[in-house]
Structures are given as C-alpha cells and as structure tokens.
C-alpha cells in the first residue's frame, strides 16, 4: 500500500502542529518519523491512521482518498505507545478482537479465529501466554501482543507510535532487531514514530525528520546522517557541535580571524560551523591550525577518550568535544589547534516562526 500525503496542515487552537506536509511512502517500506517532542510526528501518524483529521491537505492510500474513510474502514494496524491492550480480556481475546468485531457475513468461524490467533501468537513468539491477562505480562511481551493484535486484521498499513518508548534499553534493542526481521518477513508498509535517532537510523528504510510541524529532510538513514540539509538535522541526528562563525568576502572567520575553511557557497553573514567529534583532528601546534582552544577536561578511555576544548571569542566561550588522538598525550590546560576533516556550514537561521 502506497501512502501519499499532500499539503497536510493541522492546528490545535493557535498551535500549528503540522504545516504543509508532503510525504510519499512506498509500498512495503519501513519509514521512521523522527523528531523532538512537539514536532508533530505523532499527529501525522494519527492522521494517516484516521484517529485525527487534518485541517487542510489530502491523504491517499494507493491513490484513493483516505480522508473520506473512518479509522475502522481504513484497515490500518495501530500499535499505541502504551499498547492499549484490553485489560479485562486474555491475551488470546485481545488478539482475536479485530476478527470477532467483523460484520457477521465476513466474520471467520470460531475454529478459524482460533487457528489464526495461534498463528499470530507463534509469530510474536508468545504462544504459551494466550490465557494470561495483560497485567501479567512484561513490557516487551505487551508490546508484541499489541503488534499481534494489530496484525490480526491483516492491515494494509502498520502504524506504530513510539513502539519502544516504554521499554528498558536491553529489551528495546532486542525488540528492534525482531521488528526489523518481522517486517522483512511480512513486508507490510509500516510507519513508526520515534524521538530516538538511533532507533530510526537502525530500523528504518527511510527516515523523515520533522521539526515544528515541518518535514526538514527525507532520506535513507545514511543520507540524513551524512548529508544533512539543515542545521537542525545536523544538530538533531548524530553527535554534533556548532561554532558560530561569519562569512565575509568568501572567507570563514571566527573571533575575527580568517579560517582555512571553504565557505561552501554561503553568502556573507552569520553562519554555524558544524562538526562531528570524530572528524576533528587535534594538532598540538596551535599556530598552524585554523581554530584553536584550551583543553579543559579529558574523559573516557581507550577509543572513547574525549577532549573538551574551550574556544574563546572575545568574552564568549564555546565548548567543543572531540575524539582524542589515540597515542598523543594531551594535558589539561594545553593549547591545541583543531582541524575539521569534514564539516558543514549553514547560514544562521533567522528565528523561524
């Protein structure tokens, strides 16, 4: 099932939750909606599901208008953040709910329902728990039951709201791997919402980065990580540090001094220099480098050893954290130079509405 969103806009009172969102999701894709809280990602998911309606714009499933259909008619599987399992029903009855809710003429017979629920419980590896109640399950088990319940109706689209948000780190990693395998097996078009970039980058075929109700960038995990198109995406995905600089006459300047960096086609004005901690070379001889500062703290050990360096710009101080060179001994208080091997420059954002 292909999903197409066009010009989707949603306001809650005065608060613009989504602004003119365009998005195409291909059939069989696993897509992550990634963004900080308040970015509109859950609202977008609920609009696709039919649990919320946009003020403007259109939603199409395989070209068909989805907005004229209710959530029940859209045949989407929705996995809620807190799972929303029916607490008074057994696990078996939870999974069977969607089948029993069908109109009489298309409702499977009891034996078929039983067989199907057992197949689904096998799929989520919880066959033995059919007689339990949700309160007797662990968080990870509940999550998988919620998934089995959503899959029971053979959804054309699977939607997951922060699927691993309520789990502890170890279970989360396991479940993530398992969900990826499951998707490769059943290949249903899936969209999940997360604020955890690691989760999005590891699990998804494609990542949609949202901020303040707008789509900031769409691409494969590698694209959004390696080639961020805005300061927001660079900052939000992966570890990154920003140093305020200015572009003047085709040169990058920091604290009044000209740096040996390419302005990457930016026009004159304030800008931000973004680097990742492992893409900065630390050179002991400060004079030859473009940026320099004083080592303030060393922490971690082995390959994870990091230096915290203060850059001075007049009265202001900027902190930057870089991977320490493996073999050099660098002492606290030492003056060092910093040479970014890879970096990105973005024009300073005017405070956006």
């Amino acid at each position, binding site marked *: 099932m292909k999903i197409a969103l066009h010009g989707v806009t949603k306001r809650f009172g005065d608060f613009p939750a989504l602004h003119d969102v365009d998005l195409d999701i291909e059939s069989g894709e696993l897509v992550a909606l990634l963004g900080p809280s308040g970015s509109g990602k859950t609202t977008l998911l609920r609009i696709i599901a039919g649990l919320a309606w946009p003020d403007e714009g259109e939603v199409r499933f395989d070209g068909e208008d989805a907005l004229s259909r209710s959530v029940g008619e859209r045949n989407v599987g929705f996995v*809620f953040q807190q799972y929303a399992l029916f607490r008074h029903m057994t696990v078996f009855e939870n999974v069977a709910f969607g089948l029993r809710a069908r109109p009489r003429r298309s409702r499977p017979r009891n034996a078929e329902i039983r067989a199907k629920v057992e197949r689904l419980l096998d799929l989520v590896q919880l066959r033995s728990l059919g007689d339990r109640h949700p309160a007797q399950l662990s968080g990870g088990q509940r999550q998988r039951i919620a998934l089995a319940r959503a899959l029971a109706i053979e959804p054309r689209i699977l939607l997951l709201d922060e699927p691993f948000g309520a789990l502890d780190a170890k279970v989360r990693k396991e479940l993530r791997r398992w969900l990826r395998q499951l998707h490769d097996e059943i290949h249903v078009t899936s969209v999940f919402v997360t604020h955890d970039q690691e989760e999005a980058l590891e699990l998804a075929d494609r990542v949609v980065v949202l901020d303040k109700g707008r789509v900031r960038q769409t691409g494969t995990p590698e694209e959004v990580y390696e080639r961020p198109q805005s300061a927001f995406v660079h900052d939000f995905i992966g570890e990154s540090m920003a140093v305020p600089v200015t572009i003047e006459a085709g040169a990058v300047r920091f604290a009044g001094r000209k740096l040996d960096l390419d302005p990457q086609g930016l026009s004159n004005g304030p800008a931000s220099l973004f680097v990742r901690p492992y893409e900065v070379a630390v050179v002991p001889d400060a004079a030859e480098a473009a940026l320099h500062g004083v080592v303030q703290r060393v922490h971690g050990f082995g390959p994870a050893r990091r230096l915290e360096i203060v850059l001075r710009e007049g009265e202001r101080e900027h902190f930057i954290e870089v991977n320490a060179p493996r073999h050099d001994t660098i002492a606290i208080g030492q003056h060092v130079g910093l040479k970014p091997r890879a970096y990105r420059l973005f024009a300073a954002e005017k405070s956006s509405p």
Partner: protein
Amino acid sequence: MRWGIIGVATVFLALFIVIPLINVFAQAFSKGLVPFFSAISHPDAVAAILLTLTVAAISVGLNLVFGVITAWAITKYEFPGKSLLITAIDLPFSVSPVIAGLVFVLLFGAQGYLGPGLLAYDIKVIFALPGIVLATVFVTFPFVARELIPLMREQGTQDEEAALSLGASGLRTFFRVTLPNVKWALLYGVLLCNARAMGEFGAVSVVSGHVRGETNTMPLHIEILYNEYQFMAAFAVASLLALLALVTLAAKVVLENRAVRD
C-alpha cells in the same frame, strides 16, 4: 498518645453511629416480632415500600444512563463550556434538597410555568410519581457521574481508539471495551445512587404531597408515623432503610476488593 487518639475515634463512632443504629433495630423489635411484621405489612407501609422501590428503580436507571453519557462527554471530548458542565454536576450536592423540590413545584405545579399546560393533557407531575422521580433524579444525579469521571479520565481514549482501529463499531467498542473498563466504579456509583434515592427526604417531601398509601415514600411514611406517636411502627419501617444502608456498605467493601484484584 496513640491509644488516646484511637480511643477518641472509637468512642465518637460508637456514640454517634453504632449506638443509634442499634437503637433503630432495638426499637423496631421492642414489642416483639409480630408487631414488627404487622407494622411493615400495613397497607400504607407496603404502598410506601413499593413506591420507594419504583422511584429508586426509575431514577437509578435514568442516572445510570445520563451519568455514563455525561462522564463520557466530559472525559472523551473537548468542547466549549466543559468546565461549566463539570461544575453543574456538583450542583445537587451544594443545593439544599428542599430548594430542589421547590424548583420542580415552581416548574410543574398547578401555578407553575409548565404545570397548567401539562394538566390540560391530564399529566400530573407534582404530588404524583413523576414529580417524586424528578426530584430524586435531581438529588442523586452526581453519584454515577462522579464515580466514573476520574477513572475514565485516567484511562484516556486509547483503548477506544484501539478498538475502533481494529474495526469495531461504536456500540461494540462501548459494550466490549469502555463498559468493562469502568464496571466496578459504575456499580459502586449505582449502589450509592440507589441508597440515596431510597433515603431521600427533603426534595421528595416538597413534591410528594404526603398522600397516604399513594405518594408517601418510606422516609415520608416514617415521619408521619413518628409524628403520630407510633414510634414502634416508625422504627420498624426505619429499620428496613437502615438494613439497606448496611447492605450498601457490605456491597461497597466487596466491590472495592474486586476492583483492587482486577
């Protein structure tokens, strides 16, 4: 210190609650079993008991439906005037029952706004069953809604959304998901509503007209007997109401245990 506080609490409860309660039963049976049964099987007493049961059944039924609908509206939807509605639910608790009764007399009485119109169609509200039911519904309205609102608010709408997304109809969602989720709170609310409906005096007294054997509920009947110095008979009927209170209390304990276990 510790025993002092426990002692004060115990003595207070005994003095003001337990002893009067025992006294009700003691007085009821003071002349033996036969007078007791003849007092509660007197035609006027039987009429009062039946009327009370009828009024309670109708008003609890109505408040069950309206209470669930009100709680649903308040907890599952956003709409203008919501906070006003929440405040309005508590109105029957803060208004004196006598005033509640008078409001209905003013509306439906022979000189009221709607009374003459209804009388033209031969519909009698005041000094008849409809008036007694209206007054009782008004006074007992908050019980069901107040039990449900905090629970339904805490549970949110996710379960309902999940049911709808699985293709369930609105009715199926209500009966299979919403109602089971609140069943203990609902039963508890109904229980309290019922106890109050049977025991209501003030509002009913204003609208009933005190017609013996016709518009007297149990509390009104007790008062009349008492005013006529038929103390034993008054306490006999009162003991039935007291029994209802004890049953309500026991049911409450059972329900709370069930709710905790779920």
